[in-house]
């Protein structure tokens, strides 16, 4: 038992080595070439600076990435998180404007997120649709639903509570960072201190074998998708809090891409099985630092996706067993000759 946990922590460290190295490389680059990147100042008992900004926006991606990690670990994927975020934000803002109390609005946004996730889970488990396809439906229809809620308008609201979610601070750090910490802690406890994490990995490794050994594979998948929906809903609330408005057309745009990339960068295999929550959070921060670095090097927000894509391709290739196999063959052939 001790050897198993020893080897697994060693392998998880190995998996984290790549994102850590990339992270340090980017920070080094900014240390050398971006003046003021590491400047942090305290104003009104609150930290300000580029790094804090990265933590803040990276937390939104990180929260979604945690939910996405669970889904990907079961061997699935959720393409609808951006649309679900738009629905949650639109619903919360709409309820605030129509006179509901902030707690009701926030709870409704989160519940809608869970329902959307559960819907995806039902399509995957009951109808046995491929996850890409099942979540594609909500990705297409979800933004339409969000538009219907806002009636196609950008809803601005005035609510200190909802505004606090994205703009408030706790202990000097932006509130989204705290929420990320809480989401990570709860998920980590459930995943590592109960059997749920093991079940998720079993289902992702081999769903049929998991079922044979008595793992409730459908319930596990349903739980993973519902959790992912909840995380997407929370991210939607953060996003609509950042701009103090719900914009159904642009909220959560490309969120699914950033979240999936964060998970992949963090070393969780897209084929399912072993997962790393910390890795995904690191991945999210990595993406946000990359984005911020590009902006600070005066790359326009429109062009920024291109270098991001190249980074993703390189990381995917480095993670690919096929490439490792080829390199290993090459090395052994050289050694043999």
């Amino acid at each position: 038992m001790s050897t198993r946990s020893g080897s697994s922590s060693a392998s998880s460290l190995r998996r984290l080595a790549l994102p850590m190295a990339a992270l340090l490389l980017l920070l080094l680059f900014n240390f050398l070439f971006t003046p003021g990147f590491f400047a942090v100042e305290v104003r009104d008992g609150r930290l300000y600076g580029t790094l804090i900004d990265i933590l803040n926006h990276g937390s939104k991606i990180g929260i979604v990435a945690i939910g996405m990690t669970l889904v990907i670990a079961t061997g699935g994927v959720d393409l609808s998180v951006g649309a679900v975020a738009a629905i949650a934000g639109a619903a919360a803002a709409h309820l605030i404007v129509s006179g509901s109390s902030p707690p009701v609005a926030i709870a409704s946004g989160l519940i809608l997120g869970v329902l959307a996730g559960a819907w995806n889970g039902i399509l995957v488990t009951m109808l046995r649709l491929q996850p890409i396809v099942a979540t594609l439906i909500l990705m297409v229809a979800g933004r339409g639903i969000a538009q219907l809620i806002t009636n196609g308008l950008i809803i601005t609201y005035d609510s200190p509570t909802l505004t606090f979610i994205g703009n408030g601070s706790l202990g000097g750090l932006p509130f989204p960072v705290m929420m990320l910490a809480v989401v990570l802690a709860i998920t980590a406890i459930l995943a590592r201190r109960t059997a749920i994490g093991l079940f998720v990995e079993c289902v992702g490794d081999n769903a049929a074998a998991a079922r044979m050994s008595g793992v409730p594979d459908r319930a596990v998948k349903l739980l993973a998708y519902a959790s992912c929906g909840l995380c997407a809903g929370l991210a939607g609330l953060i996003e609509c809090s950042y701009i103090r408005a719900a914009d159904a057309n642009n909220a959560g745009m490309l969120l699914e891409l950033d979240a999936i990339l964060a998970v992949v960068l963090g070393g969780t295999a897209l084929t399912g099985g072993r997962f790393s929550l910390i890795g995904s959070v690191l991945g999210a921060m990595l993406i946000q630092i990359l984005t911020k670095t590009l902006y600070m090097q005066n790359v326009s927000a429109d062009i920024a996706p291109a270098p991001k894509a190249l980074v993703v391709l390189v990381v995917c290739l480095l993670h690919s067993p096929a490439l490792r196999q080829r390199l290993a063959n090459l090395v052994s052939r050289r050694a043999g000759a």
Partner: protein
Amino acid sequence: MKLIPSPRHIPMLATAVVLVGAFSLGSALYPNFASWGVIRNLLVDNAFLGIAAIGATFVIISGGIDLSVGSVMAFTSILIASLIEQHGVHPIPASGLALILGAAFGLGQGALIQAFRLPPFLITLAGMFLARGLAFAIHPQSLGIRDPFIATTINESLTFSLPLGPRGIQIPLTVDLFIAAAIVAWLVLTGMRFGRAVHAIGDDEHAANLMGLPVARTRIAVYGISGFMSAFAGVVFALYQQSGDPASCKGMELDAIAAVVIGGTLLRGGVGSVIGTVMGVMVFGLIQTMIAFQGDLSSWWTRIVVGVLVLTFLVLQRGVEWVGRRRN
């Protein structure tokens, strides 16, 4: 006995029923709906989507997916607009270069997917980012094409009239290109050895390998075709809009996939047809037309109705597979 269709054809027959049903419903609800003008607009407004969806049909039959379609279209449209307007290149070589680049882009994606066993959706997702960023790098805003060759020669002289309806209808070149692409794709998929290999890979890659089919070459070619067709759709889009726009065609890959699914192609691969896809594109267009005719419905309903239709067809596909298994 021959009157009972084989289970694998049921989704496509359902598409035909939905197409006829939607058109009949529109004609019953709205005056002036059942006209040659509406049919003409259906073809003109969806020609570029149709061409993109034909490319997506190849990929989906082979069991893959291509999410880079919309970005490659946008890249192509702004590339040719920039070449023609800013660099004085004639439209024909400009379009030719765009088509070559599109095919090369697709081949590159296919090679990565095949050589390193990477998931298609991930590689084409990265491709989607890359092409979109490159499109903005060429020119950050939309760019009108005022070249007389496109405005006059292609969009006016090559438009021909069909004596249908009271005033006849004008069919532009873009519709001819769509129909030609559909016919060629249909011939390739049904009549050529390559087309059968595409089906075989989607059905069972392992079996295809054992049969000695060139799996690697076929898979890479399929993504090359999708890239080429995306670029082709981008050219048609630029002709249709008479402009290039790096921000255009967002989500077009989803529309294309939706049209392919509504057209009865199985998303797990192996079964599908170009005829179904063309019908799927027409159903997609009819939904938009009906929502426009209704007048008081917002255009976001299109997304919701398309989502529901896709779900319906996926459930139907599941049902057909289930019946097929029980027969065996």
